[in-house]
């Protein structure tokens, strides 16, 4: 499947891109993270600690074991600091 991957805040800065399109068969968010880490050292560093990350699947917050079937937009970002 084709997924749009979005990065925000310091993830965006460390990876050096706000978005990218990937082809993947990863069944879950966690499996997708594994694939992304293998891309290059920037991805590996930015995505190294899942506890420091949050993920949204099609703009809804999800856990890392969430399935990707049917998904189109996956977003990674640090814990939010609005307000």
């Amino acid at each position, binding site marked *: 499947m084709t997924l749009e991957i979005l990065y*925000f805040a310091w993830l965006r800065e460390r990876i050096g891109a706000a978005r990218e399109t990937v082809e993947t068969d990863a069944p879950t968010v966690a499996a997708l993270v594994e694939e992304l880490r293998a891309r290059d050292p920037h991805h590996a560093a930015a995505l190294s600690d899942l506890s420091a990350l949050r993920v949204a699947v099609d703009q809804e917050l999800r856990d890392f074991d969430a399935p990707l079937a049917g998904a189109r937009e996956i977003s990674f970002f640090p814990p939010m600091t609005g307000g």
Partner: protein
Amino acid sequence: MIDIRVQAEPFDYGQECADFAAAQDGAGAVVTFCGIVRGDGGLEAMEIEHYPGMTERALTAIADEAARRWALTGVLVLHRHGTLSPGAHIMMVATAAPPRASAFSAADFLMDYLKSRAPFWKKEHRPEGPSWVAAKASDEDALTRW
């Protein structure tokens, strides 16, 4: 009844308070909150990044939940993004309900959820360089109150 706004432009807090209060029907209590950029420690600017699309969606879900729990007559959530100077108004919420306790609880709830469930990230610009604001464990813990 539920008004969600995400914008780069400044907003007029006093005017929003007046308009919000005037639009309520059957409310005995209006509570508003305004967040202001603090210039502590030589802060030069506060940059706010957000996730267009998801932001509006998350704020709407939070406001819907508040309106459902406390039978509000109205909810406003307005949040700016972009670069703000010390003293600038970052965001505001307003709630209205027949009884006082509902309006207070709902505003407090909105702020707690907005802080750690809406996709905003703050970056502080100081003389020594920029840095992303880290989320506090207490922000997440605050959600267990509700």
